[in-house]
């Protein structure tokens, strides 16, 4: 019997309309866990670097995390993996909600889409009955609207639906895949789904998920739940509100937006408004949120309720999560009411809440600076907010300039020319970032921005405080119950970290310390993405309920895989390296690993080079960021190393200093 996982994937060939239920190899689970890990393995094996994002050969994989569907609190993530039309690299956005557990109960760990359907269809997975159904009547429908219509027509109110809106259908490069309560937004999975002509995937499952060692597993679950309760009553002092409590983060509950509105940049990631958060604004925003928000809502099996049901006068109800609360507001230099209102439309269209507002603000900046003219924007309204509604419509319909903007700021700027590139200034690896413009380089964030393969800062940060606490006694207090650290040295790093003086940034934490810290933070995110754990109760947070010490217990008791901290660290490193390898094969190199030029005013080129060198080394990568033959073999990724040598990405024997046989090799 397979534990925690079902041991089956659903393979759908859309071109031929073929559906297969395929048993998976338990050995792969041991090596790559599940979710992101096994997604990456499939992508490496089956999508060679020549495959374009909009080619039938590109895969769109919906992978439920290894522990999804078990009683582990907050374990409900679907990891969506494909080649991104925007970055041309591997995208692995994930979403919460209810879909992944439902898929597991239906009897599958993943849905793997390949090929391209001739007509718009949706998939109906009802336990072991799987059908491809016509979706022509759903063409152009909103994402939530689609989900509701399908539930009605199937008479299955409990079916869980992922769907795309018009943005996905029209292959907007930053189209999202929506699930009502949650979405997989970054990287354009929605565009690939639209390209494959799949409007929705509908799942209903009523089967069991088995646990290998029930009593032990349950004890771990209970401990986590107890700790969550404790954390609720004991927020972390001295940090901003969203970091003091668990959640993903608690944007729907928290009214105090001083920190975001005054520290993040408005418009096209341009203007800091330092005195923005007045009492008057606070009151206005409070009233807006309070009247629109009908309920705080959770994902499957999680008490954190970080989403909200939003009902605005005259508009259909929708569910909002997280930071899209502010992105439209700030891009348009408007207020919260506008933000919540336009987000309703954007959710139905199915668009990423980070990229979409930025693309629109970018377009308007081009217009203000004469690069786009009235000819390019015929009929652009004069009212500021109306401009955004006008633009979002043009983009999803790919009409006129919208067709260009639909590819994101990087590609749009290239196509527009006339110096537009300078305005696409907030990208990493062609992907729009949080609008942050700061003073002095922060070495920890520098490394995370450069090397984060998910290309989104929130998907690598967490665990370690963002800034030093002013007083040593506060730091001492903080480290006292900091049992989540993988090693006590992290406590010392933090204790000695001062806001000013010798032990301050950018030279403290020192380069090796920074590398350790970033490696730890990243590792925790990768574990989450394989297990299906929400980062809101895990890697995104300081002192989370899940950590390197209890994860191995969850995996061994839940999935019946013999696991300890070292083995888990090694497994994580294995699929993390595989993600890198996929991107290396697609051309990613050191030159691409840089923060937006304007992210920090004060930069330290020599230190930055040293940081990258040292971090690459720690990761087992060479100076170009390519995993070395030696490190690949050590991880049991010989097939990657062979491929690299064949493609002349690596030279056989180069940099290979140790001929030791790795444990994996011995085991074979």
């Amino acid at each position, binding site marked *: 019997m397979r534990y925690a996982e079902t041991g089956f994937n659903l393979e759908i060939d859309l071109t031929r309309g073929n559906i297969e239920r395929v048993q998976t190899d338990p050995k792969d689970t041991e090596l790559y866990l599940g979710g992101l890990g096994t997604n990456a393995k499939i992508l490496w094996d089956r999508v060679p670097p020549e495959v374009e994002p909009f080619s039938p050969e590109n895969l769109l994989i919906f992978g439920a995390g290894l522990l999804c569907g078990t009683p582990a609190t907050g374990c409900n993530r679907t990891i969506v993996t494909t080649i991104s039309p925007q970055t041309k690299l591997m995208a692995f956005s994930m979403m919460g909600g209810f879909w992944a557990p439902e898929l597991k109960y239906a009897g599958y760990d993943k849905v793997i889409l390949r090929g391209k359907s001739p007509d718009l269809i949706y998939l109906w997975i009802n336990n072991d009955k799987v059908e491809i159904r016509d979706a022509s009547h759903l063409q152009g429908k909103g994402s939530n609207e689609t989900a509701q219509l399908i539930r009605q027509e199937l008479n299955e109110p409990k079916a869980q639906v992922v769907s795309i809106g018009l943005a996905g259908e029209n292959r907007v490069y930053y189209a999202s895949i929506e699930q009502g309560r949650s979405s997989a937004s970054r990287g354009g999975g929605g565009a690939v789904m639209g390209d494959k002509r799949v409007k929705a995937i509908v799942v209903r499952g009523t089967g069991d998920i088995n646990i290998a060692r029930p009593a032990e597993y349950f004890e771990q679950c209970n401990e986590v739940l107890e700790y969550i309760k404790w954390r*609720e009553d004991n927020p972390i002092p001295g940090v901003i509100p969203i970091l003091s409590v668990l959640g993903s983060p608690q944007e729907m509950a928290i009214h105090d937006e001083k920190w975001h509105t005054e520290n993040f940049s408005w418009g096209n990631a341009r203007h800091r408004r330092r005195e923005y958060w007045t009492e008057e604004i606070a009151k206005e925003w409070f009233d807006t949120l309070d009247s629109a928000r009908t*309920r705080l809502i959770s994902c499957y099996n999680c*008490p954190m*309720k970080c989403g909200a049901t939003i009902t605005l006068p005259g508009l259909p*109800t929708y569910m909002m999560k997280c930071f899209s609360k502010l992105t439209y507001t700030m891009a348009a230099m408007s207020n919260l009411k506008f933000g919540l209102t336009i987000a309703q439309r954007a959710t139905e269209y199915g668009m990423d809440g980070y990229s979409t507002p930025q693309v629109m603000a970018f377009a308007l900046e081009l217009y203000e600076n004469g690069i786009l003219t009235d000819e390019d924007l015929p009929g652009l309204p004069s009212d500021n907010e109306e401009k955004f509604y006008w633009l979002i419509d043009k983009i999803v319909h790919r009409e006129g300039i919208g067709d260009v903007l639909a590819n994101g700021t990087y590609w749009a700027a290239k196509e527009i020319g006339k110096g537009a590139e300078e305005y696409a200034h907030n990208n990493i690896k062609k992907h729009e970032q949080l609008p942050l413009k700061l003073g002095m380089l922060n070495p920890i964030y520098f490394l995370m921005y450069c090397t984060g393969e998910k290309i989104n800062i929130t998907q690598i940060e967490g665990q370690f405080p963002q800034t030093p606490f002013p007083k040593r006694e506060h730091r001492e207090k903080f480290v006292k119950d900091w049992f989540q650290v993988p090693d006590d040295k992290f406590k010392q790093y933090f204790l000695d970290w001062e806001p000013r003086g010798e032990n301050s940034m950018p030279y403290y934490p020192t380069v090796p310390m920074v590398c350790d810290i970033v490696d730890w933070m990243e590792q925790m995110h990768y574990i989450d993405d394989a297990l299906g754990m929400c980062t809101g109760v895990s890697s995104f947070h300081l002192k989370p309920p899940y950590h390197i010490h209890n994860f191995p217990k969850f995996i061994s008791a839940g999935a019946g895989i013999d696991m300890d901290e070292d083995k888990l660290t090694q497994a994580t490193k294995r699929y993390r390296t595989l993600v890198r390898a996929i991107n290396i094969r697609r051309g990613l190199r050191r030159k691409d690993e840089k923060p937006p030029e304007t992210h920090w005013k004060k930069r330290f080129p020599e230190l930055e080079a040293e940081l990258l060198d040292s971090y690459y080394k720690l990761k087992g990568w060479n100076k170009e960021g390519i995993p070395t033959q030696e490190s690949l073999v050590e991880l049991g990724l010989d097939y990657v190393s062979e491929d690299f040598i064949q493609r002349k990405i690596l030279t056989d024997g180069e940099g290979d200093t140790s001929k030791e046989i790795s444990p994996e090799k011995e085991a074979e």
Partner: protein
Amino acid sequence: MKGEKKKKIVKTIRIDVEKCNGCRACEVICSASHAEPKYSSNNPARARIRVICEPYKDIYVPVYAGDYAPAECAGRDKYTIDGKEYDECSFCRASCPSRDEFKEPDSGLPLKCDMCEGEDEPMCVKWCLADALVLEEREEEVDEEEEQEELAVGLESLADKYGLDKIIDTLTRLSKKE
């Protein structure tokens, strides 16, 4: 037995639908703690509590599985509360032919909340950190009445489905095999 008074602890779970966040942790833990062996599997379709969710109408109603109903009832209720219109049967606890709720997914046998007998506390209450489910206990004098056993209810539902004769036939056949 009839007419005799007996002291009994009455357990009430107070449901505050306003506090429910739709997480379904109650379903998760109910199904896990009723698995054999305990916690060995998990499947909300086996839970004895269901959260009726209609997010776009902001409807969240945790409902406990009550008694088995052999047939649909003819008169049904449709509530409107605070302007929200609830579907027919939304508040009904019955395992009834009109719907899939509260039936074992494989056998179709009725499920009923047993208040987690044997645990210190109903598990769903324990796992509902939102306090949408709160246990209240009080002592009451009640008429003693034989509780119908789970097996009896199961048999009754089978009898309704297939007819009693057929069941007796089958049972006889099965016992002969052994």
